[in-house]
Protein backbone atom coordinates (compact mmCIF):
# COMPACT_ATOMS: atom_id res chain seq x y z
CA UNK A 1 0.00 0.00 0.00
CA UNK A 2 1.25 3.41 -0.91
CA UNK A 3 0.23 6.51 0.94
CA UNK A 4 -0.35 9.55 -1.22
CA UNK A 5 1.09 12.80 0.10
CA UNK A 6 0.81 16.23 -1.37
CA UNK A 7 3.84 18.40 -1.95
CA UNK A 8 3.27 21.52 0.12
CA UNK A 9 6.39 23.41 -0.77
CA UNK A 10 9.45 22.99 -2.94
CA UNK A 11 12.75 24.70 -2.16
CA UNK A 12 15.58 24.77 -4.63
CA UNK A 13 18.61 24.12 -2.43
CA UNK A 14 21.34 23.88 -5.05
CA UNK A 15 21.41 23.70 -8.85
CA UNK A 16 20.81 19.93 -8.57
CA UNK A 17 19.01 19.47 -5.25
CA UNK A 18 15.44 20.36 -4.36
CA UNK A 19 13.64 19.82 -1.06
CA UNK A 20 10.02 18.66 -1.19
CA UNK A 21 7.92 19.30 1.91
CA UNK A 22 4.86 17.23 2.74
CA UNK A 23 2.80 16.03 5.68
CA UNK A 24 2.53 12.40 6.76
CA UNK A 25 1.58 10.64 9.97
CA UNK A 26 4.61 8.35 10.20
CA UNK A 27 7.38 9.06 12.67
CA UNK A 28 10.72 8.38 11.05
CA UNK A 29 14.00 8.61 12.87
CA UNK A 30 17.06 10.27 11.30
CA UNK A 31 18.68 7.97 8.76
CA UNK A 32 15.51 6.12 7.82
CA UNK A 33 14.23 6.23 4.28
CA UNK A 34 11.09 5.89 2.22
CA UNK A 35 10.41 4.45 -1.20
CA UNK A 36 8.90 7.11 -3.47
CA UNK A 37 6.82 5.94 -6.40
CA UNK A 38 6.12 8.29 -9.29
CA UNK A 39 3.44 6.32 -11.10
CA UNK A 40 4.37 5.44 -14.63
CA UNK A 41 7.95 6.60 -14.08
CA UNK A 42 10.01 4.96 -11.36
CA UNK A 43 10.28 4.10 -7.69
CA UNK A 44 13.39 4.93 -5.68
CA UNK A 45 14.64 5.22 -2.10
CA UNK A 46 14.95 8.60 -0.43
CA UNK A 47 16.10 9.53 3.05
CA UNK A 48 13.98 11.79 5.14
CA UNK A 49 15.61 15.22 5.43
CA UNK A 50 13.07 16.86 7.76
CA UNK A 51 11.35 14.67 10.35
CA UNK A 52 9.00 17.03 12.18
CA UNK A 53 5.31 17.35 11.55
CA UNK A 54 6.30 18.80 8.21
CA UNK A 55 8.55 16.27 6.56
CA UNK A 56 10.71 16.51 3.49
CA UNK A 57 12.86 14.71 0.97
CA UNK A 58 15.88 16.51 -0.45
CA UNK A 59 16.46 15.07 -3.86
CA UNK A 60 19.45 15.31 -6.12
CA UNK A 61 18.81 15.10 -9.85
CA UNK A 62 20.77 12.13 -11.13
CA UNK A 63 18.63 10.24 -13.59
CA UNK A 64 15.19 9.64 -15.01
CA UNK A 65 13.30 9.24 -11.73
CA UNK A 66 14.82 12.21 -9.97
CA UNK A 67 14.41 14.33 -13.12
CA UNK A 68 10.68 13.63 -13.02
CA UNK A 69 10.69 14.47 -9.33
CA UNK A 70 12.37 17.79 -10.04
CA UNK A 71 9.69 18.61 -12.60
CA UNK A 72 6.91 18.36 -10.01
CA UNK A 73 5.15 21.41 -8.61
CA UNK A 74 3.63 22.31 -5.29
CA UNK A 75 0.27 20.56 -5.03
CA UNK A 76 1.49 17.55 -6.94
CA UNK A 77 1.41 14.18 -5.22
CA UNK A 78 3.95 11.57 -4.18
CA UNK A 79 3.24 7.90 -3.54
CA UNK A 80 5.32 6.73 -0.64
CA UNK A 81 5.89 3.67 1.52
CA UNK A 82 8.05 3.51 4.63
CA UNK A 83 9.76 4.58 6.80
CA UNK A 84 12.17 1.72 6.34
CA UNK A 85 15.47 0.60 7.72
CA UNK A 86 17.52 1.44 10.76
CA UNK A 87 18.53 5.02 11.37
CA UNK A 88 21.41 6.44 13.34
CA UNK A 89 22.03 5.40 16.93
CA UNK A 90 22.45 8.51 19.03
CA UNK A 91 25.45 8.05 21.28
CA UNK A 92 26.66 10.26 24.06
CA UNK A 93 30.04 10.92 22.45
CA UNK A 94 31.68 14.00 21.02
CA UNK A 95 30.50 13.90 17.45
CA UNK A 96 31.61 15.04 14.04
CA UNK A 97 29.04 14.90 11.25
CA UNK A 98 30.37 14.56 7.74
CA UNK A 99 27.97 14.94 4.84
CA UNK A 100 29.02 14.76 1.22
CA UNK A 101 26.72 16.02 -1.55
CA UNK A 102 23.13 14.85 -1.11
CA UNK A 103 24.38 12.82 1.87
CA UNK A 104 23.69 15.93 3.94
CA UNK A 105 19.98 15.26 3.35
CA UNK A 106 20.26 12.06 5.37
CA UNK A 107 22.42 13.55 8.07
CA UNK A 108 20.57 16.83 8.64
CA UNK A 109 17.76 15.66 10.94
CA UNK A 110 20.31 13.84 13.08
CA UNK A 111 22.48 16.94 13.37
CA UNK A 112 19.45 18.91 14.52
CA UNK A 113 18.82 16.47 17.32
CA UNK A 114 22.40 16.20 18.61
CA UNK A 115 25.42 18.31 19.49
CA UNK A 116 28.63 18.22 17.51
CA UNK A 117 30.48 19.86 14.66
CA UNK A 118 29.54 19.56 11.03
CA UNK A 119 31.49 19.11 7.84
CA UNK A 120 29.56 19.89 4.67
CA UNK A 121 31.32 18.80 1.54
CA UNK A 122 30.49 19.06 -2.15
CA UNK A 123 32.12 19.22 -5.52
CA UNK A 124 31.70 22.92 -5.72
CA UNK A 125 30.29 25.85 -3.77
CA UNK A 126 26.83 25.86 -5.34
CA UNK A 127 26.31 22.22 -4.42
CA UNK A 128 26.79 22.68 -0.68
CA UNK A 129 23.56 21.49 0.97
CA UNK A 130 22.06 22.95 4.13
CA UNK A 131 24.91 25.39 4.63
CA UNK A 132 22.65 27.67 6.63
CA UNK A 133 20.37 25.13 8.26
CA UNK A 134 22.19 24.62 11.56
CA UNK A 135 22.20 27.41 14.10
CA UNK A 136 24.91 27.93 16.72
CA UNK A 137 27.13 25.25 15.27
CA UNK A 138 30.64 25.00 14.09
CA UNK A 139 30.13 24.20 10.39
CA UNK A 140 33.17 23.43 8.25
CA UNK A 141 32.98 23.55 4.48
CA UNK A 142 34.98 21.58 1.96
CA UNK A 143 34.75 21.75 -1.83
CA UNK A 144 36.67 19.63 -4.29
CA UNK A 145 37.43 22.72 -6.38
CA UNK A 146 38.09 25.00 -3.48
CA UNK A 147 35.34 27.41 -4.48
CA UNK A 148 34.39 27.65 -0.79
CA UNK A 149 36.06 26.59 2.43
CA UNK A 150 38.65 23.88 2.47
CA UNK A 151 39.91 22.86 -0.97
CA UNK A 152 39.93 19.09 -1.23
CA UNK A 153 38.00 16.02 -0.23
CA UNK A 154 35.94 15.78 2.90
CA UNK A 155 38.11 13.10 4.47
CA UNK A 156 41.15 15.30 4.09
CA UNK A 157 39.43 18.08 6.00
CA UNK A 158 38.34 15.55 8.60
CA UNK A 159 41.91 14.40 9.12
CA UNK A 160 42.90 17.97 9.83
CA UNK A 161 40.03 18.49 12.23
CA UNK A 162 40.97 15.35 14.07
CA UNK A 163 44.40 16.80 14.70
CA UNK A 164 42.87 19.65 16.64
CA UNK A 165 39.73 18.16 18.18
CA UNK A 166 38.92 15.21 20.39
CA UNK A 167 36.01 13.78 18.41
CA UNK A 168 34.87 10.38 19.57
CA UNK A 169 32.47 9.47 16.80
CA UNK A 170 31.89 10.28 13.16
CA UNK A 171 28.40 10.17 11.65
CA UNK A 172 28.56 10.20 7.89
CA UNK A 173 26.63 9.96 4.68
CA UNK A 174 27.89 10.69 1.21
CA UNK A 175 29.72 9.17 -1.72
CA UNK A 176 30.80 5.62 -0.94
CA UNK A 177 34.47 6.37 -1.52
CA UNK A 178 34.36 9.23 0.96
CA UNK A 179 32.73 6.99 3.53
CA UNK A 180 35.28 4.25 2.88
CA UNK A 181 38.07 6.72 3.64
CA UNK A 182 36.35 7.90 6.81
CA UNK A 183 35.90 4.33 8.01
CA UNK A 184 39.56 3.64 7.41
CA UNK A 185 40.44 6.78 9.36
CA UNK A 186 38.12 5.76 12.19
CA UNK A 187 39.66 2.30 12.35
CA UNK A 188 43.15 3.74 12.29
CA UNK A 189 42.50 6.26 15.03
CA UNK A 190 40.24 4.13 17.14
CA UNK A 191 37.21 6.40 16.67
CA UNK A 192 33.65 5.19 16.57
CA UNK A 193 31.75 5.68 13.31
CA UNK A 194 28.30 5.24 11.81
CA UNK A 195 27.71 5.48 8.10
CA UNK A 196 24.53 5.56 6.06
CA UNK A 197 25.05 3.54 2.91
CA UNK A 198 23.36 3.67 -0.48
CA UNK A 199 22.98 0.68 -2.74
CA UNK A 200 20.69 -0.22 -5.58
CA UNK A 201 17.31 -0.92 -4.04
CA UNK A 202 14.49 -2.86 -5.55
CA UNK A 203 12.23 -4.08 -2.76
CA UNK A 204 13.28 -1.88 0.15
CA UNK A 205 12.02 -4.51 2.60
CA UNK A 206 14.82 -7.01 2.84
CA UNK A 207 13.95 -9.80 0.46
CA UNK A 208 15.36 -9.20 -3.02
CA UNK A 209 19.05 -9.12 -2.07
CA UNK A 210 19.78 -6.31 -4.56
CA UNK A 211 21.06 -3.89 -1.90
CA UNK A 212 23.19 -6.43 -0.03
CA UNK A 213 26.81 -5.77 0.69
CA UNK A 214 28.80 -8.64 2.17
CA UNK A 215 25.60 -10.30 3.34
CA UNK A 216 24.12 -7.19 4.98
CA UNK A 217 21.02 -5.65 3.54
CA UNK A 218 21.24 -1.89 3.30
CA UNK A 219 17.45 -1.64 3.33
CA UNK A 220 16.74 -3.43 6.63
CA UNK A 221 20.04 -4.10 8.38
CA UNK A 222 20.99 -0.51 7.42
CA UNK A 223 21.06 1.96 5.76
CA UNK A 224 22.96 3.12 8.83
CA UNK A 225 25.57 0.65 10.01
CA UNK A 226 27.76 0.79 13.07
CA UNK A 227 31.48 0.35 13.14
CA UNK A 228 31.66 -3.39 13.90
CA UNK A 229 29.67 -4.19 10.79
CA UNK A 230 31.32 -1.57 8.60
CA UNK A 231 34.67 -3.19 9.39
CA UNK A 232 33.39 -6.49 8.02
CA UNK A 233 32.26 -4.90 4.75
CA UNK A 234 35.20 -5.65 2.55
CA UNK A 235 33.25 -4.66 -0.58
CA UNK A 236 32.51 -1.15 0.69
CA UNK A 237 34.17 1.37 -1.58
CA UNK A 238 35.47 -1.42 -3.79
CA UNK A 239 32.69 -3.54 -5.28
CA UNK A 240 29.03 -3.03 -5.92
CA UNK A 241 26.29 -5.08 -7.55
CA UNK A 242 24.61 -4.09 -10.79
CA UNK A 243 20.93 -4.46 -11.57
CA UNK A 244 21.47 -8.09 -12.57
CA UNK A 245 23.23 -8.79 -9.28
CA UNK A 246 26.71 -9.08 -10.76
CA UNK A 247 29.49 -8.06 -8.40
CA UNK A 248 31.40 -5.32 -10.21
CA UNK A 249 34.24 -3.00 -9.20
CA UNK A 250 33.01 0.38 -7.99
Amino acid at each position, binding site marked *: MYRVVEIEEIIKETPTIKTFFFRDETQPSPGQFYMI*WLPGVDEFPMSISYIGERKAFSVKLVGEGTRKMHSLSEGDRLWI*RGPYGRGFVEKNKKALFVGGGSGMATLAPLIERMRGDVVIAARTKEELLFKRRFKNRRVYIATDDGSEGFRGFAHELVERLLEENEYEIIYTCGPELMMRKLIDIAIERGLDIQASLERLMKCGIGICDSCSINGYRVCVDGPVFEKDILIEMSDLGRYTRDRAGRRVPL
Partner: protein
Amino acid sequence: MLSVAINDLRFRNPLLLASGILDESGESMLQVIKHGAGGVVTKSIGMEPREGYENPVIYELSYGLLNAIGLANPGIENYGEEIKIAKRGGVPVIGSVFGKDAEEFAYLARKMEEYGVDAVELNLSCPHARGYGMEIGVDAALVEEIVKEVKRKVNIPVWAKLTPNTHNIVEIAKAASDSDALVLINTVRAMAIDIEAKLPVLSNIFGGLSGPCIKPIGIRAVYEVYREVEKPIVGVGGIIDARDVIEYIMAGASAVEIGTAIYLRGIHVFSEIASEMEDWMKKHGYEKIEELVGIAQVR
Protein backbone atom coordinates in the same frame (compact mmCIF):
# COMPACT_ATOMS: atom_id res chain seq x y z
CA MET B 1 14.96 -34.14 16.34
CA LEU B 2 14.33 -31.88 13.35
CA SER B 3 16.69 -33.53 10.91
CA VAL B 4 15.13 -34.71 7.65
CA ALA B 5 16.24 -36.33 4.42
CA ILE B 6 14.96 -35.78 0.91
CA ASN B 7 16.14 -38.90 -0.84
CA ASP B 8 19.77 -39.11 0.33
CA LEU B 9 20.17 -35.44 1.05
CA ARG B 10 20.17 -34.68 4.78
CA PHE B 11 19.14 -31.38 6.29
CA ARG B 12 19.64 -30.40 9.92
CA ASN B 13 16.08 -29.14 9.90
CA PRO B 14 13.29 -29.04 7.32
CA LEU B 15 13.38 -25.25 6.95
CA LEU B 16 14.95 -24.25 3.66
CA LEU B 17 15.28 -20.79 2.21
CA ALA B 18 12.92 -20.41 -0.77
CA SER B 19 14.27 -19.38 -4.15
CA GLY B 20 14.36 -15.68 -4.88
CA ILE B 21 14.51 -14.35 -1.35
CA LEU B 22 17.91 -13.19 -0.09
CA ASP B 23 19.75 -15.72 -2.16
CA GLU B 24 21.35 -13.92 -5.05
CA SER B 25 24.69 -13.44 -3.31
CA GLY B 26 26.62 -16.16 -1.55
CA GLU B 27 27.14 -14.00 1.49
CA SER B 28 23.43 -13.39 1.94
CA MET B 29 22.85 -17.12 1.82
CA LEU B 30 25.52 -17.53 4.49
CA GLN B 31 23.62 -15.11 6.70
CA VAL B 32 20.43 -17.07 6.26
CA ILE B 33 22.28 -20.26 7.14
CA LYS B 34 23.77 -18.56 10.18
CA HIS B 35 20.23 -17.76 11.26
CA GLY B 36 19.23 -21.38 11.22
CA ALA B 37 18.10 -22.46 7.75
CA GLY B 38 18.47 -26.19 7.15
CA GLY B 39 19.37 -25.53 3.53
CA VAL B 40 19.17 -22.79 0.93
CA VAL B 41 17.81 -22.61 -2.57
CA THR B 42 19.48 -20.00 -4.75
CA LYS B 43 17.67 -17.36 -6.71
CA SER B 44 16.64 -18.77 -10.09
CA ILE B 45 19.60 -18.40 -12.44
CA GLY B 46 19.33 -18.27 -16.22
CA MET B 47 21.60 -18.32 -19.25
CA GLU B 48 22.34 -14.61 -19.37
CA PRO B 49 22.52 -11.79 -16.85
CA ARG B 50 19.07 -10.21 -16.50
CA GLU B 51 18.29 -6.91 -14.88
CA GLY B 52 14.71 -7.82 -14.15
CA TYR B 53 11.83 -5.39 -14.28
CA GLU B 54 11.86 -1.73 -13.41
CA ASN B 55 10.67 -0.62 -10.00
CA PRO B 56 8.17 -1.07 -8.44
CA VAL B 57 8.88 -4.79 -8.31
CA ILE B 58 7.19 -5.40 -5.00
CA TYR B 59 3.94 -4.45 -3.31
CA GLU B 60 3.14 -4.97 0.35
CA LEU B 61 -0.29 -6.32 1.21
CA SER B 62 -1.56 -6.86 4.70
CA TYR B 63 -1.56 -10.63 4.22
CA GLY B 64 1.35 -11.17 1.87
CA LEU B 65 3.42 -9.76 -0.93
CA LEU B 66 3.04 -9.22 -4.62
CA ASN B 67 6.29 -9.34 -6.59
CA ALA B 68 7.55 -9.13 -10.11
CA ILE B 69 11.29 -9.04 -9.75
CA GLY B 70 11.48 -10.42 -13.28
CA LEU B 71 14.03 -13.16 -12.76
CA ALA B 72 16.84 -10.64 -12.28
CA ASN B 73 20.03 -12.67 -11.93
CA PRO B 74 23.73 -12.44 -12.72
CA GLY B 75 23.62 -15.24 -15.28
CA ILE B 76 24.96 -18.75 -14.83
CA GLU B 77 28.49 -17.95 -15.99
CA ASN B 78 28.92 -15.43 -13.17
CA TYR B 79 27.41 -17.60 -10.47
CA GLY B 80 30.15 -20.05 -9.49
CA GLU B 81 31.67 -17.80 -6.87
CA GLU B 82 28.35 -17.27 -5.09
CA ILE B 83 27.79 -21.02 -4.80
CA LYS B 84 31.30 -21.46 -3.45
CA ILE B 85 30.64 -18.90 -0.74
CA ALA B 86 27.22 -20.32 0.11
CA LYS B 87 28.67 -23.81 0.43
CA ARG B 88 30.81 -22.58 3.31
CA GLY B 89 27.66 -22.54 5.39
CA GLY B 90 27.87 -26.30 5.74
CA VAL B 91 24.28 -27.04 4.75
CA PRO B 92 22.95 -28.25 1.41
CA VAL B 93 22.78 -25.62 -1.31
CA ILE B 94 20.19 -26.18 -4.00
CA GLY B 95 20.72 -24.36 -7.27
CA SER B 96 17.53 -23.01 -8.81
CA VAL B 97 17.52 -22.53 -12.57
CA PHE B 98 15.12 -21.31 -15.24
CA GLY B 99 15.41 -21.79 -18.97
CA LYS B 100 13.22 -21.59 -22.02
CA ASP B 101 13.54 -25.23 -23.07
CA ALA B 102 14.93 -28.60 -22.03
CA GLU B 103 18.32 -27.83 -23.48
CA GLU B 104 18.75 -24.63 -21.49
CA PHE B 105 17.56 -26.26 -18.31
CA ALA B 106 20.01 -29.11 -18.81
CA TYR B 107 22.89 -26.75 -19.50
CA LEU B 108 22.12 -24.67 -16.43
CA ALA B 109 21.76 -27.74 -14.24
CA ARG B 110 25.10 -29.10 -15.45
CA LYS B 111 26.76 -25.83 -14.61
CA MET B 112 25.20 -25.81 -11.17
CA GLU B 113 26.47 -29.34 -10.65
CA GLU B 114 29.95 -28.21 -11.64
CA TYR B 115 29.71 -25.35 -9.16
CA GLY B 116 29.06 -27.90 -6.45
CA VAL B 117 25.38 -27.57 -5.53
CA ASP B 118 23.76 -30.50 -3.72
CA ALA B 119 20.67 -30.53 -5.91
CA VAL B 120 19.05 -28.44 -8.62
CA GLU B 121 15.60 -27.01 -8.47
CA LEU B 122 13.88 -26.42 -11.80
CA ASN B 123 11.77 -23.30 -11.71
CA LEU B 124 8.85 -24.43 -13.86
CA SER B 125 6.58 -21.95 -12.24
CA CYS B 126 7.43 -18.26 -12.14
CA PRO B 127 4.06 -16.61 -12.85
CA HIS B 128 5.18 -13.40 -14.46
CA ALA B 129 8.09 -13.82 -16.89
CA ARG B 130 7.13 -14.34 -20.51
CA GLY B 131 8.35 -17.58 -22.01
CA TYR B 132 9.71 -18.86 -18.74
CA GLY B 133 8.49 -20.54 -15.64
CA MET B 134 4.78 -20.85 -15.51
CA GLU B 135 4.19 -20.69 -19.26
CA ILE B 136 6.31 -23.79 -19.43
CA GLY B 137 5.07 -25.24 -16.16
CA VAL B 138 1.45 -25.65 -17.25
CA ASP B 139 2.37 -27.75 -20.26
CA ALA B 140 2.62 -31.32 -19.01
CA ALA B 141 4.49 -32.64 -22.04
CA LEU B 142 7.12 -29.92 -21.83
CA VAL B 143 7.54 -30.42 -18.10
CA GLU B 144 8.11 -34.11 -18.66
CA GLU B 145 10.65 -33.46 -21.39
CA ILE B 146 12.59 -30.93 -19.31
CA VAL B 147 12.75 -33.11 -16.24
CA LYS B 148 13.81 -36.16 -18.26
CA GLU B 149 16.50 -34.21 -20.10
CA VAL B 150 17.92 -32.69 -16.93
CA LYS B 151 17.91 -36.09 -15.21
CA ARG B 152 19.88 -37.50 -18.14
CA LYS B 153 22.51 -34.78 -17.87
CA VAL B 154 23.22 -34.49 -14.14
CA ASN B 155 23.96 -36.86 -11.30
CA ILE B 156 22.75 -34.70 -8.45
CA PRO B 157 19.10 -34.82 -7.35
CA VAL B 158 16.64 -32.85 -9.46
CA TRP B 159 13.74 -31.05 -7.83
CA ALA B 160 10.83 -29.74 -9.88
CA LYS B 161 9.10 -26.62 -8.62
CA LEU B 162 5.53 -26.40 -9.85
CA THR B 163 2.99 -23.65 -10.27
CA PRO B 164 -0.42 -23.52 -8.60
CA ASN B 165 -1.74 -21.56 -11.58
CA THR B 166 -3.30 -24.59 -13.21
CA HIS B 167 -6.51 -26.51 -12.81
CA ASN B 168 -4.68 -29.76 -12.38
CA ILE B 169 -1.49 -29.73 -10.43
CA VAL B 170 -1.62 -33.49 -10.02
CA GLU B 171 -1.31 -33.96 -13.76
CA ILE B 172 1.73 -31.67 -13.89
CA ALA B 173 3.22 -33.43 -10.87
CA LYS B 174 2.85 -36.74 -12.62
CA ALA B 175 4.54 -35.32 -15.69
CA ALA B 176 7.41 -34.24 -13.44
CA SER B 177 7.67 -37.54 -11.66
CA ASP B 178 11.05 -38.42 -13.08
CA SER B 179 12.43 -35.81 -10.74
CA ASP B 180 13.67 -36.65 -7.27
CA ALA B 181 11.38 -34.29 -5.42
CA LEU B 182 8.49 -31.96 -6.11
CA VAL B 183 8.46 -28.44 -4.78
CA LEU B 184 4.95 -26.99 -4.29
CA ILE B 185 4.09 -24.13 -4.79
CA ASN B 186 5.41 -21.05 -6.47
CA THR B 187 3.54 -17.75 -6.26
CA VAL B 188 0.00 -17.25 -7.53
CA ARG B 189 -0.48 -14.99 -10.53
CA ALA B 190 -2.01 -11.76 -9.31
CA MET B 191 -1.90 -7.99 -9.51
CA ALA B 192 -2.91 -4.80 -7.75
CA ILE B 193 -4.01 -1.38 -8.92
CA ASP B 194 -3.39 1.85 -7.06
CA ILE B 195 -6.66 3.68 -7.40
CA GLU B 196 -5.15 7.10 -6.79
CA ALA B 197 -2.54 6.52 -9.49
CA LYS B 198 -5.12 4.70 -11.63
CA LEU B 199 -2.38 2.31 -12.64
CA PRO B 200 -1.20 -1.19 -11.87
CA VAL B 201 1.38 -0.97 -9.13
CA LEU B 202 3.98 -3.34 -10.50
CA SER B 203 5.89 -2.05 -13.50
CA ASN B 204 5.31 -5.46 -15.05
CA ILE B 205 1.56 -5.19 -14.25
CA PHE B 206 1.35 -8.88 -13.27
CA GLY B 207 3.19 -10.49 -10.42
CA GLY B 208 3.19 -13.37 -8.01
CA LEU B 209 1.32 -13.51 -4.74
CA SER B 210 3.16 -14.98 -1.75
CA GLY B 211 2.77 -15.06 2.00
CA PRO B 212 0.04 -16.17 4.41
CA CYS B 213 -2.74 -15.60 1.90
CA ILE B 214 -1.54 -18.45 -0.33
CA LYS B 215 -0.97 -21.03 2.39
CA PRO B 216 -4.37 -22.70 1.95
CA ILE B 217 -3.56 -23.06 -1.75
CA GLY B 218 -0.14 -24.56 -1.04
CA ILE B 219 -1.49 -26.98 1.55
CA ARG B 220 -4.11 -28.11 -0.94
CA ALA B 221 -1.50 -28.65 -3.64
CA VAL B 222 0.75 -30.69 -1.34
CA TYR B 223 -2.19 -32.72 -0.06
CA GLU B 224 -3.50 -33.47 -3.55
CA VAL B 225 -0.14 -34.42 -4.99
CA TYR B 226 0.99 -36.51 -2.01
CA ARG B 227 -1.86 -38.96 -2.50
CA GLU B 228 -1.25 -39.39 -6.20
CA VAL B 229 2.49 -39.20 -6.75
CA GLU B 230 5.11 -41.08 -4.78
CA LYS B 231 7.83 -38.49 -4.53
CA PRO B 232 9.17 -36.50 -1.62
CA ILE B 233 7.48 -33.13 -1.51
CA VAL B 234 8.90 -29.81 -0.41
CA GLY B 235 6.07 -27.51 0.69
CA VAL B 236 6.26 -23.77 0.04
CA GLY B 237 3.86 -20.89 0.40
CA GLY B 238 2.82 -18.70 3.28
CA ILE B 239 4.73 -20.33 6.09
CA ILE B 240 5.28 -17.95 8.96
CA ASP B 241 5.45 -20.16 12.03
CA ALA B 242 5.93 -23.71 13.25
CA ARG B 243 2.23 -24.46 13.02
CA ASP B 244 2.34 -23.69 9.31
CA VAL B 245 5.34 -25.96 8.83
CA ILE B 246 3.60 -28.79 10.68
CA GLU B 247 0.48 -28.24 8.61
CA TYR B 248 2.51 -28.68 5.41
CA ILE B 249 4.24 -31.75 6.80
CA MET B 250 0.96 -33.32 7.87
CA ALA B 251 -0.37 -32.66 4.36
CA GLY B 252 2.55 -34.65 2.96
CA ALA B 253 5.64 -32.45 2.75
CA SER B 254 9.00 -33.83 3.89
CA ALA B 255 10.51 -30.37 4.18
CA VAL B 256 9.50 -26.80 3.47
CA GLU B 257 10.82 -23.60 1.97
CA ILE B 258 10.30 -20.21 3.51
CA GLY B 259 10.41 -16.86 1.76
CA THR B 260 8.03 -14.05 2.60
CA ALA B 261 8.29 -14.77 6.33
CA ILE B 262 11.73 -13.20 6.20
CA TYR B 263 9.95 -9.96 5.44
CA LEU B 264 7.27 -10.56 8.04
CA ARG B 265 9.40 -11.88 10.90
CA GLY B 266 13.02 -11.14 9.97
CA ILE B 267 15.93 -13.31 9.00
CA HIS B 268 16.01 -15.05 12.40
CA VAL B 269 12.71 -16.70 11.43
CA PHE B 270 14.50 -19.98 10.70
CA SER B 271 15.99 -20.56 14.14
CA GLU B 272 12.82 -19.28 15.77
CA ILE B 273 10.59 -21.67 13.86
CA ALA B 274 13.02 -24.51 14.54
CA SER B 275 12.73 -24.03 18.25
CA GLU B 276 8.96 -23.56 18.08
CA MET B 277 8.83 -26.89 16.24
CA GLU B 278 10.90 -28.67 18.83
CA ASP B 279 8.62 -27.39 21.56
CA TRP B 280 5.56 -28.58 19.72
CA MET B 281 7.02 -31.99 19.01
CA LYS B 282 8.10 -32.51 22.59
CA LYS B 283 4.73 -31.47 23.89
CA HIS B 284 3.01 -33.86 21.51
CA GLY B 285 5.42 -36.75 21.94
CA TYR B 286 6.97 -36.87 18.49
CA GLU B 287 10.62 -37.69 18.09
CA LYS B 288 11.14 -37.43 14.36
CA ILE B 289 9.67 -35.26 11.65
CA GLU B 290 9.09 -38.36 9.54
CA GLU B 291 6.39 -39.51 11.95
CA LEU B 292 4.31 -36.52 10.91
CA VAL B 293 4.64 -36.66 7.13
CA GLY B 294 1.22 -37.05 5.53
CA ILE B 295 -0.62 -38.03 8.70
CA ALA B 296 -3.52 -35.71 7.94
CA GLN B 297 -4.31 -37.63 4.77
CA VAL B 298 -7.84 -39.01 4.90
CA ARG B 299 -8.06 -42.29 3.00
